[in-house]
């Protein structure tokens, strides 16, 4: 039952009904990945770009993605500077025939936090080259505003380190980023379970991108469905406008007409 019709998620020239974007990494099998993708209801899926092993044979990851249902979002994961990221994006565009790119320039191998300076440099070049750029960035309102000013189609702040599953570590900065942004805000990284997804969406962000939270669950297919439900639940709760919090109780049942109450 879907009683409330949400507006579509618009990223550049693209439109999606689902607000959950999923990955292809770390699944126990290709069958599990395909079933999880189906259960997630996602319409966009990330892939990485790597050198082939010379002499390798065999199937392609792309054989397991139904491109009639899924938009592919290639990433520049593993790049440590703007030059590598731009080169990877250009190869991805030719390989996958898409102008979409998840820009990821890593600055530190242990935290996988982005290199903000190199991300900004790469974003500027990629936007000028006609890409629809979705940058992974810290939960930094200034960097997000700068990326938007450069022409990025969305901003994708982390909520916790990639693959950590720590949840939404700083909901206040995520809220500030969303309040100020004129492009979609997509929480990328940190969501570990369904409640994290709901919390993020209740903050008002436009979408979630997750990989490990689904792929590393004991049952990735069930978790994919849980994430889909939580993403939608959080979105609806945000759109509904939650009640105000109070310090003291406020009874839901009337205080008049109680049995045994003295009559006036």
């Amino acid at each position: 039952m879907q009683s409330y019709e949400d507006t579509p998620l618009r990223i550049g020239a693209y439109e999606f009904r689902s607000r959950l974007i999923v990955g292809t990494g770390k699944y126990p099998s290709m069958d599990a990945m395909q079933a999880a993708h189906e259960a997630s209801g996602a319409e966009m899926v990330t892939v990485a770009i790597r050198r082939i092993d010379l002499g390798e044979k065999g199937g392609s990851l792309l054989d397991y993605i139904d491109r009639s249902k899924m938009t592919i979002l290639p990433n520049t994961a593993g790049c440590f500077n703007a030059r590598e990221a731009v080169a990877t994006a250009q190869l991805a565009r030719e390989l996958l025939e898409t102008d979409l790119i998840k820009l990821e320039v890593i600055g530190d191998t242990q935290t996988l936090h982005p290199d903000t300076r190199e991300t900004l440099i790469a974003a500027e070049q990629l936007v000028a080259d006609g890409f629809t750029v979705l940058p992974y960035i810290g939960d930094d309102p200034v960097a997000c505003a700068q990326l938007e000013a450069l022409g990025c189609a969305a901003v994708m702040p982390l909520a916790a380190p990639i693959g950590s599953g720590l949840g939404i570590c700083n909901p206040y900065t995520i809220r500030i980023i969303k309040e100020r942004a004129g492009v979609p805000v997509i929480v990328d990284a940190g969501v570990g379970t369904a409640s994290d997804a709901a919390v993020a969406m209740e903050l008002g962000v436009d979408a979630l991108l997750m990989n490990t939270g689904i792929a590393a669950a004991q049952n990735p297919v069930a978790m994919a469905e849980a994430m889909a439900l939580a993403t939608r639940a959080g979105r609806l709760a945000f759109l509904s406008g939650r009640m105000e919090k109070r310090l003291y109780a406020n009874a839901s049942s009337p205080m008049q007409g109680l049995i045994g109450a003295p009559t006036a």
Partner: protein
Amino acid sequence: MKLEINGEKRELPATEATLDEVLATLGIEAHGVAIACNDRVVRRGEFAQQRIAEGDRIEIVRAVAGG
């Protein structure tokens, strides 16, 4: 000719070739890969025209699982 392919030094018997011919020599299917030659992306339709010469650096990539 000596080439650098995906960071590996390779020596091919031919002294000159097109990119198509290099792929055939290496047994690489053009389907499902993208290629840059000396940091410039070669469009898929241009593999048969792209001349490869001594010392060229070739990058051949594909899509893999990732987040």
